[in-house]
């Protein structure tokens, strides 16, 4: 399927979430979250620490089981799937980029191995092809070819994050979950990563759910924005509309609290 077909075939949502709720005992993780995500769309989720955005992301990605609600991926009920099926989905169609690259990489394995491993997990066996594809992806995330045999522990934070992205995207996923992917990086490194992500989203037609507390990041990356507070979605809409004409009291506070540079 070409990119244009993927972009124009937007009648069916890729992900449909209805009434998702997760409790930790009496405490609400997230409550009654519903949204649709279409192919090629980037959805930003913002909110302060403890707002439930990370809980929501981990429920969506299958790391936690929600108490209530439905998740349909490409028309299939994710929560009803067998564990094997779900694991296969998260190795092929889905990707998850952790805030800390150490959580998403194998630090004792070479950069090329980190990327190749994902390919082998989906059945690639030909060494030359795996290495070639790994080298290609390192190039796409701007890691020099002569670093392919180095371990990620020898990389800077920004390079590790780019390597994690290469490892995630090498299998051609359609849906990517990102948890604060630019958190903890220097501003100049952040800009480079944002530029890279934008290009990849556009060229590969990826659907992305990105959790962050950085409003500047979502403005540049996300088409749509969801604002969470105390586990609930208080406002959602077009990113620039939510940021420039916020309707909810909490969003107004959030937007007006950002320091102007």
């Amino acid at each position, binding site marked *: 399927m070409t990119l244009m077909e993927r972009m124009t075939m937007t009648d069916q949502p890729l992900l449909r979430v209805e009434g998702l709720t997760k409790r930790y005992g009496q405490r609400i993780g997230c409550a009654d979250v519903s949204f649709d995500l*279409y192919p090629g*769309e980037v959805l930003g989720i913002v909110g302060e620490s403890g707002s439930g955005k990370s809980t929501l992301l981990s429920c969506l990605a299958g790391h936690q089981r929600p108490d209530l609600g439905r998740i349909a991926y490409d028309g299939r009920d994710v929560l009803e799937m067998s564990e094997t099926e779900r694991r296969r989905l998260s190795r092929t169609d889905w990707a998850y980029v952790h805030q800390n690259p150490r959580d998403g990489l194998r630090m004792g394995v070479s950069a090329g191995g980190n990327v190749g491993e994902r390919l082998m997990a989906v059945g690639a066996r030909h060494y030359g092809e795996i290495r070639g594809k790994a080298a290609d992806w390192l190039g796409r995330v701007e890691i020099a070819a002569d670093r392919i045999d180095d371990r990620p522990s020898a990389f800077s934070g920004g390079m590790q994050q780019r390597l994690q992205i290469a490892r995630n995207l090498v299998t051609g996923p359609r849906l990517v979950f990102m948890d604060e992917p630019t958190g903890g990086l220097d501003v100049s490194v952040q*800009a480079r990563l944002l*530029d890279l992500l934008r290009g990849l989203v556009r060229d590969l037609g990826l659907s992305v759910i990105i959790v962050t507390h950085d409003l500047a990041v979502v403005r540049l990356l996300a*088409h749509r924005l969801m604002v969470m507070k105390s586990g609930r979605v208080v406002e959602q809409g077009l990113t620039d509309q939510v940021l420039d*004409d916020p309707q909810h*009291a909490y969003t107004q*506070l959030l937007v007006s609290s950002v320091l102007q540079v």
Partner: protein
Amino acid sequence: MIRIENLSKSFTLHNQGGAVIPVMAGAALSVGPGECVGLTGQSGAGKSTLMRMVYGNYLAAGGRLMVGDLDVATAEPRQIIALRRQTLGYVSQFLRVVPRVPTLEVVAEPLLALGTPADQARARAASLLRRLNIPERLWPLSPTTFSGGEQQRVNIARGFAHAYPALLLDEPTASLDAANREVVLSLIEEAKARGAAILGIFHDEAARARVCDRLVDVTGFTPKAAA
């Protein structure tokens, strides 16, 4: 192409005692294909607010806001995203880009987003930058470090890269020298000639007289103060 009926807008300031500030009521206008309509009225009268509403950047409180056959006032975000990608362009007064992205890419981006082959998109971007007198040695650099006038011209090049059927122009000739102002006015005339519907704010009176077919004073859309 653009048809506005009985449009209203208010801002509710929840963190300032829930004050509701009505800023627009009963706004109406239309812009046909090949036509350029200029918005007039004093600073603060609501020209930019109206433009932002047409672009879907500000939410409408009520009324209809048709761009093509989409009512922006009630459309879903993804419908507005598609509208902005294909149909409705906006040249704002500020350039907002990812730092580090080369100028040539910034200008080519709207075309790349439409799936135009990269070499074609870059060729179009290059010809616009050349016309707008941005020296070729600056093309590989990010426009974030450029002067105000250069950024404005990059912004214009980006806005004109794709032949949008409808265009919003917010002060497109501000901070430009005579030669570049002339280029921008020709770009507007060419867009009109190919049938684009243009809604604009022009403080430059000579420019307004030259490209605008009609003027609409937004002062008439100011809500009457409640008695």
